[in-house]
């Protein structure tokens, strides 16, 4: 009854549904359903065999998008890697795709006209699909920008933003200009998006005297202030709130509110020295989250073939004693084990309980209050850039502010 075989997505169609003549645009279809946008703006989804298409005509939907342009005078580079902040919605289908249109910056960010910027588009990628190879590619772009004395604003998905921020932080022993990762928790098609305010703040921070890698996100659920958090101390603490990012134990490095930014004391200033950069990373690494079900075989399967393993242990840094034999044999084969806590606050202390003491004797390195994610990235960096006999020393030394000796928040 239907002429569905010939109707194509994006065509304007007239059709009969339940004896009613209607018209709209065929948005998409599969073998079972048509999705049609009616002239009222509503989409309807109807079974393919329930309608009869009586007229069709092609239409062209134009997408406005402006290509990125080089700017030799640029003071800041905006590097789009993907994620919600660098996504656009296809208004016809509603699908959100990771494509960044530099044109939207001018329309939506009031302060952008006072910045000289250059947009660099990377292959768009969702946060969960990030890999160490991509961290290295981003690192290279940041390095080139640093050499030119440019700040960097990296548009990034929020899910693994802390990992990328840590990786960049360890790659550079000092920075000439700020490196800022910006994300958003609400896509830019929503009028309530946090993307533009976060970006507006990132631009302001990019001119500040900050020689660190920071994550720039909402400070509260209101559109009143944005904070710049130290990358190596930042965690995504909520799956959806705008103020999901927190840096437990350290205050924000800088704040933006009422259209002005202030840098907080304790933030490392821009370095005058030549940038030293190394993107080498040990990739035979693992982060293992211990749980009561985990047996020696599971543990072995997760750790074998790895040179470095960060354990997120229970409480002050424990795993079951039934894993000890497996851990011993892996250590004998050269795997280095480190301990962090899977608690959402606090540090490991492996002297308090016997399990902790036994693990220390087995060679497990306690990493204080370093976050498991940061510890993994740091270990990858240290293993690839320092001699083996320096590994433990570097891991327990604070390099970029990742390790706090005192917890001062009550």
């Amino acid at each position, binding site marked *: 009854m239907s002429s569905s075989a010939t109707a194509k997505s994006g065509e304007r169609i007239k059709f009969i549904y*339940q004896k009613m003549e209607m018209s709209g645009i065929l948005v998409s279809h599969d073998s079972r359903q048509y999705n049609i946008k*009616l002239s009222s703006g*509503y*989409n*309807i*989804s109807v079974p393919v065999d329930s309608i009869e298409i009586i007229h069709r005509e092609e239409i062209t939907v134009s997408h406005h998008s402006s290509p990125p342009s080089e700017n030799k005078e640029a003071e800041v580079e905006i590097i789009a890697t993907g994620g919600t902040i660098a996504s656009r919605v296809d208004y016809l289908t*509603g*699908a959100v795709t990771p494509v960044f249109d530099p044109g939207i910056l001018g329309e939506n960010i009031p302060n952008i006209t006072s910045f000289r910027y250059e947009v660099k588009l990377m292959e768009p990628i969702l946060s969960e699909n990030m890999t160490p190879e991509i961290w290295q590619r981003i690192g290279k772009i940041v390095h080139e920008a640093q050499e030119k004395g440019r700040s960097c604003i990296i548009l990034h998905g929020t899910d693994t933003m802390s990992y990328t921020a840590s990786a960049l932080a360890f790659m550079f022993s000092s920075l000439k200009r700020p490196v800022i990762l910006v994300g958003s928790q609400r896509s830019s*098609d929503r*009028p309530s998006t946090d993307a533009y305010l976060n970006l507006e703040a990132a631009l302001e921070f990019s001119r500040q005297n900050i020689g660190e890698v920071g994550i720039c996100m909402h400070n509260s659920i209101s559109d009143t202030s944005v904070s710049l958090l130290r990358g190596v101390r930042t965690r995504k603490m909520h799956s959806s709130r705008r103020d999901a990012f927190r840096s437990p134990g350290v205050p924000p490095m800088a704040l933006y509110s009422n259209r002005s930014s202030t840098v907080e004391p304790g933030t490392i200033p821009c370095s005058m020295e030549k940038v030293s950069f190394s993107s080498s990373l040990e990739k035979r690494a693992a982060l293992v989250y211990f749980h009561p079900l985990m047996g020696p075989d599971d543990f072995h399967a997760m750790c074998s073939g790895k040179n470095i393993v960060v354990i997120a242990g229970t409480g002050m840094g424990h795993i079951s004693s039934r894993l000890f034999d497996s851990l011993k044999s892996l250590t004998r084969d050269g795997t280095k084990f480190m301990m962090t806590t899977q608690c959402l606050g606090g540090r490991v202390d492996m002297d308090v309980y016997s399990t902790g003491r036994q693990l220390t004797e087995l060679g497990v390195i306690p990493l204080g209050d370093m976050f498991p994610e940061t510890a993994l990235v740091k270990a990858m960096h240290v293993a690839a850039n320092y001699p083996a006999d320096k590994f433990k020393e570097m891991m327990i030394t604070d390099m970029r502010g990742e390790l706090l000796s005192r917890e001062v928040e009550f």
Partner: protein
Amino acid sequence: MLGTTSGETGDTDPAVIYERKRDRSFQYTITDNSCLVDADEEPPQDINHEAMKKAISTSMYLNCITMSHVQYMRKIVVDGSNTSGFQRTAIIGIGGRIETGMGPVRISSICLEEDSCRKIEQEGSTVEYSLGRLGIPLMEISTEPDIKSPEHAREVAEIIGAPLIAAGWLRKGADSIRQDVNFSMGFGRVEIKGVQKLSDIESCIRYEMERQNGLRKVSEFLKGAGIPHISLTESGDLFEKTTSNILRKSMKSGLSIYVSRLTGCAGIMKKGDLRLGKELSDIVKAFGGGGLMHSDELPAFGIDHEIGPIREKLGCCDGDAFIIVTMRPQLKELMETELNSRLKTICDMTLSETRYLNQDGTTSFLRPLPGGARMYPETDVPVINILPFMEEAEKIKPVPVESVISDISEKYGISIQDSETIVRKGMLHEFLLFLEIIRDGSLSSRLLLHIIPEISKTAGREIRGEEVAELMKKAPAFDLDRETIEYAMKIHFEDNTPQEKAWEEVRKSFLSSGDLSLLVEKAASIPDISEKNLIPRLRGLTDKKFNPAVAMEMYKKVRKSS
């Protein structure tokens, strides 16, 4: 803050541009029923199954084609009433029809939406909303332009609404049923939002007809005499010694005073149905100004001796009018543009816009009509197959108005005439509200049909059912009966006594049932007491009021037991 994004065609909606010009900021008050979804801090969860069943059932009841699959959309709304900047909405049914006394009326669609925030207050460019109502399931039922008269509009609303109220599907509350009245007499479509009472449908349409007829005359006048140009001049100096409270207050709160001449407009600002002044005043308020006064209404508001100097300053001739506008200085340019554009709109009679109904029965400009390009699919909610809902939806089908009337009469023991009045006059909602509190059908009906209208008359204003319900809810552990309620209403509504105090007065003036019972026992021992003289005798024994019917019942009981 809500950003403004362009739609799929790259165009930006007129309603969105309007909001952008106003540059307002929004504050939200969290209520007991708020959660992160309301604050737009979390994606929505599964669709409300109860609401879905009721919407499907309504679709069937209104003879619609019910969609086999439901696709949620985001409708862009940037006035702050939705924290996300859009409203979730989906078509449940299309192409229905109902039979009315004036022929069939087609139903275009039934949509299941999320209700928006309730506005609490607006101060300058900051608007405060409550999250309380946000996200509550809302059914939007739209009709085709088949409605023939104001009375017919009311009838259609009743046919659609009464069965839903009777089915108990509506939340209790003043704004749980609202009509958006679309009206056209050839000068564009005007949508009047938030009409709550059935009786207001007729009156707001009448008002709108009158308004547009008046504007047509104004338009002809402007076409003949030429459209004046409004140019606002800061004139605080003319009002330094003003005795006008309004102006003094405005200046104190940091607003400046501007004046402008309207060449040749004397007599059309406000005279009979010519009301250009109100049109301009609405614009000033909509764009965040303090207010507007015009020469046709002066001297008034404490402005008198300033009139001469204003006219002189503006070089006004005899036929010229002038306006006084209070606003923040940074609004000057925007306000001039918008006021002049309003004059042009009126001259061209292109009156399409969204308006709202004021309490005094007039309507005011709310925003331009939104365009079609403001919807795109809600990606957080998958397409829903309605098949699993169908069986239950069929079970809960609402019944037609006639059955509602007989059901109410039978179930609550009131006459069929009273039941009909209650249903047809749109009072069913209030009736059920009263019933819930006092659990007495005939008293609820009496309150609605007799007591409230009487007290409204003596109080000199229309008392709403919700106000009476609120008062009754405040009653302490006390016998709620016709006398006590009526007495409490009298002192509350006529003398403006606060609710708690009114009940205190009731307690002081009325015998409690315990005391009445004691008194009846005492009276029963009087030798010549009978049912005939019981009440006067009781009155002789106490200064306090009591319910004679209750006393009689008590007396009969005492007699029986002795």
